[in-house]
């Protein structure tokens, strides 16, 4: 099996869940290179589980996961990180007892120090606020700053595939917009991103491709802008109208 060079990741007939618990059904998905793919859907639809499946944190009952032409279905999670995947978790996505700096140092523990420093500077260009709070305990950051740090932890690893789970959850609209803008910027820089979001409108406006998940199944796929126009979906699943 070889992937088209433009496809970074592919899910093939995935049935997955947690232990015996079945969450995802017959999922097929291709993630194009250098694009932002958005996963939207109601609460409990299986967005996080899809990301967990991609990163090897869920139980795969059947089906296969391909990443850069390799079958990684059985590869353990920590090795996927070494293969260039990064994952910003939905909850507990920072080391809250450590300072901002220590968080970033930790995230680059397997990268040479000089290179790590360079990358941190790049991250600070995207999120200047973090630089001001370098020595603050991460647990005391505001919600927005927290999410920025969480994204930065993935970003300093220069991932080839970046999974973001609800980076705007609980943020005020203005802050959420800032975060979406930052993500769009990353997309424009050529990062391949999968973005799972509750905030369907913001996410669809940010992303290139979109996938709508409901009850563990993909119910619609297409360009993000097109999905945004689909009144039927908007009403049924996204609560946009």
């Amino acid at each position, binding site marked *: 099996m070889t992937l088209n060079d433009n496809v970074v990741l592919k899910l093939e007939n995935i049935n997955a869940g947690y232990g015996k618990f079945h969450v995802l059904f017959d999922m097929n998905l291709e993630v194009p290179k250098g694009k932002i793919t958005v996963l939207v859907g109601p609460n409990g639809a299986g967005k996080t589980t899809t990301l967990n499946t991609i990163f090897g*944190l869920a139980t795969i009952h059947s089906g296969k996961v391909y990443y850069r032409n390799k079958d990684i279905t059985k590869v353990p999670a*920590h090795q996927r*990180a070494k293969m260039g995947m990064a994952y910003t*978790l939905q*909850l507990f996505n920072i080391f809250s007892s450590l300072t901002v700096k220590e968080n970033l140092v930790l995230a680059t*523990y397997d990268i040479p120090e000089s290179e790590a420093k360079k990358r941190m500077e790049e991250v600070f260009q995207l999120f200047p606020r973090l630089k001001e709070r370098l020595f603050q305990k991460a647990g005391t950051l505001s919600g927005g700053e927290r999410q920025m740090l969480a994204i930065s932890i993935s970003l300093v*690893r220069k991932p080839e595939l970046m999974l973001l789970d609800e980076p705007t959850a609980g943020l005020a609209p203005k802050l959420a917009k800032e975060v979406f803008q930052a993500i769009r910027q990353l997309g424009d820089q050529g990062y391949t991103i999968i973005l799972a979001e509750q905030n369907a409108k913001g996410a669809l406006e940010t992303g290139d491709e979109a996938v709508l998940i409901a009850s563990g199944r993909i119910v619609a796929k297409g360009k993000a802008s097109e999905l945004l126009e689909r009144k039927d979906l908007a009403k049924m699943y996204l609560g946009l109208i």
Partner: protein
Amino acid sequence: MGFAAFMAPLYYASILSLLSVGITLSYMTTKVFNFAHVRYATVAAYFAAATMLTLIVHHHITLNAATRTIGGIQYIMPLPGWIYVVGFVVASIVGGLVSIFLYYAILKPLERKGLPPLALMISTLGFDFLLVAFLFIFMSEKPIINLAAKASSIIGTVNFASLGLDFTDAYIRIGNTMVRGSVLGALVLAVVTTIVLTFLTRKTKLGIMMRSSIENPNLALVLGVNVDRVFAIAWFLAGLIAGMAGFLLLFGTSFLKFISPTSPYNSIVVSVFAGSIVGGIFNVEGSIGGGFLIGLIEKWFVPWLAAVLSMPSLIKYNKVFSMFAVALTLLFIPEGLASIRFSKFRKKKGGGEA
């Protein structure tokens, strides 16, 4: 109180601290109180004793009780130095291996099944019983007692086969006292362990990975840390250190009594837990200090108090003092008392991000 009177308390306190730190290491990583931990020391002591005795028999080693001098320091080393070294290495490795076996063969599979920490703690109890069964079978006559008898007949002392069966200790002169090698060894080992572990957890890459895995295992995992392996290393270290303590215990008490699973010496388990809790179950250095403190309370403070109050029977009640130390720590001292933070953390997990 003379210098010599401190020897036994220091020895005991050092050994407790070596065992307490293992409880903390394994608790910090997997959130499991390991009931089998102290038994590692016993099993390791068993293997070390069996190896040393076999070597004595095999090489027809005789005791050398003469006082010798090296670099102006007087010492007595009854057995050749390499025998002690072999025993020490065997004990450490056996301790480490038993620990890692428990981690990979029992805890990990059960954890994957979704068993809660309390159930995992009970499974360490089940494993402890298996170790006890092992000791019951192999510490009886042929495997070790006969071996000890043979060894002692070659060595030409009554040391092994009769009365105490304690191993022949070395001595070093410090000032005008001949200090037992095991006492000095225990003290040095406790200090070295503290330094090495502090360095390891604070300054090395492994330490960084360990601390991040402890604080947030999922996040560490997605950053590419092999959390299982990091924890396994912590468990191995815990077992290794317990094995060293087991080796030292060969010299302190009658070792056959010590390795007997039914012996009252096993109430050391409670003192070890006490050390770990009083010192801080989330703090490696703290637990070493805690073990030391409990050891000194039991073997130095209580006897001193008994003498001061002229109530000699008080000495027998020394474990009651440890009990109070544990109760007071758990109930009233917020610092180092990680239980409250821990339960809050768990609540938070259940109730979503606060």
